[in-house]
């Protein structure tokens, strides 16, 4: 790298000299316009343009050497084979039987064999959900069949209709006057988890993020996730938003999402934010995250929040991905603020060695403070952003003036000790961020 810069310097000087010559020539040019001069000039121009090209190549070489990393992980690998959506038991479901046995069936000639096609039609046109709601009952085989279509069908119309079916039979929290509905089968954690695995999801709660990069070569033809992931997320949203007390699943009142399941899926959703290919669905993921967060009872939330933050912090690498993890938590309500702050804190704790684990105090910041200036600026940037999120997403921090004071010192160091001419990558980013934060904290103090 250093060598390249030197080379570049040389080239530049050469080019500069030539250019100066050219310039002086061109000044004379209008006066002495003979052929020889012209040729000379042309060759010089050619030389100059050659140098410029050369320079450009070199510059590009440097850039790739020094490329700033992007956040992002391949969260999905190869898809596994999907369970078949053809369920033989669907032919014996009572609903279908009653259609076939109807007196008027002679006019329609529906047979059990054609049953699945018939039911698909009912599903797409919304009649199946209507039947379920009016009858206040969903048979086991129907429930399973629709669930499988939603998560595994490659037919957009079918899987979307299947998702609509589930969303419309699950009563929303504000629909108080709706009759209870009996659902004979309801997908639980294993089914939802199984679908994720079939899509090729790699970041199980026991998997370290760093192990992912190594085995990322996926077969492009079977690379996950399929479009069904949208419905997976939507289904989760519906479950979280449903008013569970009124649903009778398998003849007893049950909760749809327990807090332990919610905790696991919250971790999954946060990990999905790391997948660049799912960026376009981020509005769904945001909604899902908020819905899951709202499932917990107040007393459960704090423990879950800490547990989840610790687990994510332990697994993530200290690169831009850990920032992405923190920043994908929207912070629009108290719980998500808490999670944001907690996660930032836990990552910091791990960054600074586990012996500081229990001391939520200023030593953490001092240790950032003593970092040498020629340290990794990217890392410094990450620390800066993490600390910011830890401190400012947490209302309790206002009561800890010492930490805020040290934070101020740290910011001043970053913003004053890094010169604006420092061209190392991320140096200017650290400086800019620090001076921005310094400005806004000052302003706060004044108020």
């Amino acid at each position: 790298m250093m060598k390249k810069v030197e080379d570049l310097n040389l080239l530049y000087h050469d080019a500069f000299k030539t250019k100066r010559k050219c310039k002086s020539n061109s000044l004379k040019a209008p006066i002495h316009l003979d052929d020889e001069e012209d040729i000379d000039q042309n060759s010089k121009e050619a030389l100059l343009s050659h140098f410029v090209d050369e320079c450009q190549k070199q510059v590009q070489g440097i850039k790739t050497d020094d490329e700033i990393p992007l956040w992002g992980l391949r969260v999905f690998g190869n898809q596994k084979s999907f369970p078949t959506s053809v369920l033989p038991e669907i032919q014996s479901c009572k609903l279908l039987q009653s259609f076939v046995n109807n007196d008027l069936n002679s006019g329609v000639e529906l047979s059990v064999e054609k049953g699945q096609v018939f039911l698909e039609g009912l599903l797409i046109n919304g009649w199946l959900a209507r039947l379920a709601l009016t009858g206040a009952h969903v048979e086991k085989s129907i429930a399973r069949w629709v669930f499988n279509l939603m998560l595994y069908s490659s037919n957009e119309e079918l899987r979307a209709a299947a998702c609509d079916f589930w969303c419309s039979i699950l009563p929303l929290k504000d629909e108080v006057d709706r009759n209870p509905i009996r659902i004979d089968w309801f997908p639980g954690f294993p089914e939802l988890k199984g679908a994720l695995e079939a899509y090729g999801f790699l970041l199980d709660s026991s998997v370290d993020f760093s192990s992912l990069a190594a085995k990322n070569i996926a077969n492009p033809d079977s690379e996950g996730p399929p479009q069904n992931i949208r419905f997976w997320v939507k289904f989760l949203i519906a479950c979280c938003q449903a008013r569970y007390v009124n649903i009778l699943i398998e003849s007893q009142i049950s909760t749809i999402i327990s807090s332990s399941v919610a905790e696991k899926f919250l971790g999954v959703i946060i990990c999905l934010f790391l997948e660049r290919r799912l960026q376009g669905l981020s509005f769904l993921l945001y909604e899902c995250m908020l819905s899951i967060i709202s499932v917990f009872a107040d007393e459960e939330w704090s423990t879950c929040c800490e547990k989840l933050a610790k687990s994510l912090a332990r697994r993530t690498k200290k690169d831009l991905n850990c920032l992405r993890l923190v920043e994908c938590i929207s912070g629009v309500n108290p719980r998500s603020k808490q999670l944001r702050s907690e996660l930032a804190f836990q990552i910091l704790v791990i960054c600074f060695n586990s012996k500081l684990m229990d001391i939520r105090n200023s030593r953490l910041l001092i240790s950032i403070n003593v970092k040498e200036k020629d340290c990794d600026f990217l890392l410094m940037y990450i620390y800066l952003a993490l600390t910011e999120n830890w401190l400012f997403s947490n209302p309790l921090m206002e009561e800890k003036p010492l930490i805020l004071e040290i934070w101020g010192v740290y910011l001043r160091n970053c913003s004053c000790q890094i010169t604006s001419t420092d061209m190392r990558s991320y140096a200017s980013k650290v400086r800019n961020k620090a001076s921005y934060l310094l400005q806004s904290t000052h302003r706060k103090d004044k108020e």
Partner: protein
Amino acid sequence: MERSRGIKNNNNNSSRGIEENIMAILDASGVKEARDADDDRLAFLEAVRAAFLVVEAGSPPPRKIFEAIFEILRDGTSLELTMASFQLLTELDKHYPNMNLSNSDTSELTGGRGSESIADRETWSPFALGPESAHSEREATSKNSADPIDSSGFSFLIQNIAQAPEEMKCLKYVKKSLVDMLLFKYLVNVLERDFFHRNIIHKETRNWFLLRESLLSMLLGSRRVSYKNLVKDCLSIISRCSHQTDVGLHSIPSLERSSDRVVHDVEVAPAVALLELQKETCVAVQNLFVLNMELDKAKKLAETQGCTSRADGVRTPVIEIIVDELAYNEDLLFPFLQAFSESRWKIEIILQYFWKYLPKPSVRTRRSRNTSVEDETFNAVLRSFSSDSSVRSIIKKISAETAQLLLAHSFQVRDFPLVFSYIKYNPIKNTLTNSRAQVVLITVTDSCGQIRLINSSNYKLQLHCMHEIWLSNIP
């Protein structure tokens, strides 16, 4: 006294300070690469989030900041920026519902100009409507993407979405249409919120002026918009939405298998979002229609009360345009009924469709105490099907297929008690025999479960069955 003024000044200064400080992040002075500029924009969005959502700021971000976010959304330089700016705008709007309701209310009551207090000079709006925008005769193309959208810009946007190429073969198109769809979704949300707040007060005060000054009303009232074309474009968006095909990770041929991981992701990510956003767009169109119909209804009410003036202009109610379009273009009917789920207006549209072809009975005279006008008109439609001769004449005007489709959807929307009565009374046995309710269900679904039934050999049987049931249920 002195002190409190000092504090106030300080507050003012500090909010301006925050603005300057945040805006400085975007300052592009100095040599920069595209990547750096994008990073700065992301940092800007994140800083706004931190300062106005995560930390309780008390007041919404100043106009300049909104403009900058809006510009980032419309520029659509990268998917990450597009999504982040859309999300931020949506969340800011939720966090700071920017209508000052009590203000508009009181100014209304005192006879002041409600529009001024609502469209506060300080609060930002993505729309530039009303008289001052009429003066700006700039071309749509030369507009800065930070500028708010005016009425022609809005119809242009809808047109773009409606006419986007069916097959997204090129990344550029995909990205462009993603930005368009997100922008549309956001704008409809803004219209909806504005209208919703005004409508609440309108329902109490019956003050038409409030709704006339709503963003929606000003937008549609503009002379620079061809209202009819706008509705047509909306309808074609809905019909396109119905034949979506799977845009999987690998179904875009030109994007396939880029060897570079990063490039590959950049190309695939927008394609993954496309299907979902098309659906969302469809929902947004429906919401726009519903708002529009609510507005028309309020206007009609105001007219009967003599509250309108010449300034209100004349505009064909949207429902008439929709029904005309549906009647004119039969291919639209199925996707439209399939996509439109708002039940109250759906039944209205269906009834209007029928009234185009059926003799309208004098409903009011026969209205009994317990049924609404809507119920009465619906029953009247059913009655028209009650004799062989009238059915024959209907089928001549509307095809049997269309008639059934309309009926089927009206049953579904209204939860017509007949259709499912057997289940209600017999939930455990699940026996369907001898249940008249079943007949209707079969009538509207064929052996493939499709609503479109008719096959000429047996449609008479079904009409006969329907006929019988209706007769027994019509009071």
